């Protein structure tokens, strides 16, 4: 237990001490939130309704997709996991502790956004704070799982950027954060529904704001949880201690299984 406490404390501090992680955990999401609050609300007053969930999802994506996987790959390449292994640090801790602390950073930023959006920018607060908190936790869990999985399957730092952006960029455009899902063309909608951000937004709208949704919010919430769980289990299964050691369990393409719950939702919608 003491070991886990030390590990958690170290990883949490790293999220603040490391310049890249500080940027992804706090500066980028809060800076983007401030910009959106100052500019987007003027351009599109309707954005006030989606502001809080959209910025929470963006904070989760920034921390978990752009921040979390990089150090996992760098540590493997630098032989840090070899040091961990010979000193008895289990693979589960190596993956879960950064995921957990990243989740804490996201929750802190989410709290700041949720509490300041209304007084600062007129953002609409959730109708049901309890549901908002639950969906936030599910969103954090889902993205943290994906971030871990990307860190495990990416061969090097360049692959991390590629894989992370493969989810991050489409999510910002098609994930219902900047424009509602129901105004997207029908042909684009299945692509949008492959993205966790879309389901997070649907769950926020349905449960926390009581708004009409494109998908069943319960299905979206379940898909988020299931995807996060599958991603974490796969990350632990596919984890490789050593970049010089080619022996690994399973093929990296198994990672695509983490998207299976979203495919189920798409099929259910048809």
């Amino acid at each position, binding site marked *: 237990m*003491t*070991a886990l*406490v*030390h*590990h958690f404390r*170290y990883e949490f*501090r*790293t999220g603040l*001490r*490391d310049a890249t992680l500080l940027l992804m955990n706090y500066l980028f999401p809060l800076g983007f939130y401030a910009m959106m609050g100052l500019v987007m609300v003027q351009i599109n007053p309707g954005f006030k309704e989606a502001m809080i969930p959209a910025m929470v999802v963006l904070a989760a994506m920034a921390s978990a997709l752009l921040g979390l996987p990089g*150090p996992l790959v760098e*540590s493997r390449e*630098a*032989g*840090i996991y*070899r*040091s961990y*292994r*010979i*000193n*008895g*640090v289990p693979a589960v801790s190596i993956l879960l502790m950064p995921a957990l602390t990243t989740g804490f950073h996201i929750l802190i930023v989410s709290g700041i956004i949720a509490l300041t959006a209304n007084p600062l920018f007129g953002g609409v607060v959730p109708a049901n704070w309890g549901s908002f908190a639950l969906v936030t936790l599910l969103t954090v869990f889902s993205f943290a799982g994906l971030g871990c999985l990307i860190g495990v399957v990416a061969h090097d730092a360049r692959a991390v950027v590629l894989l992370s952006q493969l989810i991050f960029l489409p999510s910002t455009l098609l994930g219902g954060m900047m424009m509602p899902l129901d105004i997207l063309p029908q042909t684009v909608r299945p692509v949008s529904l492959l993205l966790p951000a879309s389901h997070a937004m649907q769950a926020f709208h349905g449960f926390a704001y009581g708004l009409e949704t494109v998908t069943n919010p319960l299905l979206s919430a379940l898909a988020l949880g299931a995807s996060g769980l599958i991603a974490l289990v796969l990350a632990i299964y596919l984890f490789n*201690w*050593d970049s010089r*050691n080619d*022996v690994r369990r399973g093929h990296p393409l198994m990672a695509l299984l983490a998207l299976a719950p979203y495919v189920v939702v798409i099929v259910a919608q048809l």
Partner: protein
Amino acid sequence: MADQAIQVKDFRKLYGDFVAVDGISFSVEIGEIFGLLGPNGAGKTSTLECLEGLREPTAGSLDVLGLDPSRDGRKLRNIVGVQLQTSGLPANMSVAEAMRFFCAYHGVAPRYDLLDRLGLAAKHDARYADLSTGLQRRLALALAVAHQPQVLFLDEPTAGLDVESRAELHALIQELQAQGTTIILATHDMAEAEKMADRVAILLRGRLVATGTPRELTATGEGFTKVSVRTEQSLLSSNGTMFPAVHQRSVMDDYTVYYSRDPGPTVSAILGYLSERNDKLIDLRVERPSLEERFLEITALGQTSATAPGQSGATAPLGAGTGKGGTA
């Protein structure tokens, strides 16, 4: 078996088609410092990493304190200490943080005294990335011994260390041995192996070509013992007298140097010769061939005569063995 800490039998390690280690066998007794020597690519690190449980052997059996490293990795972690040749710590982790972190996973109290002893007293709050290579290696060593392991694996422990740090490290290794720790020392530094190791094994192209105590190994080679003599009248340097078992003679500064196959008779004869002629002895030095010279001799022979690993055929004999020492 009971007094053996490590047993390696017919161990092979392949990376694809490349044979890194080709069927070696050796054992290490409890409390022994065992040196694993060899040029780059000889298979030292592969052997160590399989013993440490970081890699799986391709064939053969490995036993560390009764445990199979590839199956009993978790049990092994708390009874062995490892200083890897290539490893790292997170750049942002401080020295004290690293000590707390790893000791917590070993279930022991942090050993800050080790940090102080290894010259890291003023560096407790320094980030790992800000330490010099030498300090990083000292930290790795402190972490390797903090949980008082029964077996300690050291892979090139003094690489990048200054003279003072090397001496401190050697003192620490000897102290650990006195406490009963078994130490496996892989090194390029022959002087270090000769000074520290009770026994050494020389690996060449994945094969074990010689094992024994440093003294045994140096005694079995073709090297000559150097007998250097300086006298008041310098009779030896002026008249070119040769003595029994002497192969070659030279004069350096005020010394006459004899290269002898058998230093006992040579020295006796020299002393008798000087006594008869009333030439007073000022200095007499007898230097056996060093382990480094013997190592170079073995590896030179091996490079020219050993069959490439992975092919059939036996390694050519490399010097005659006597007692415990000799070819393997």
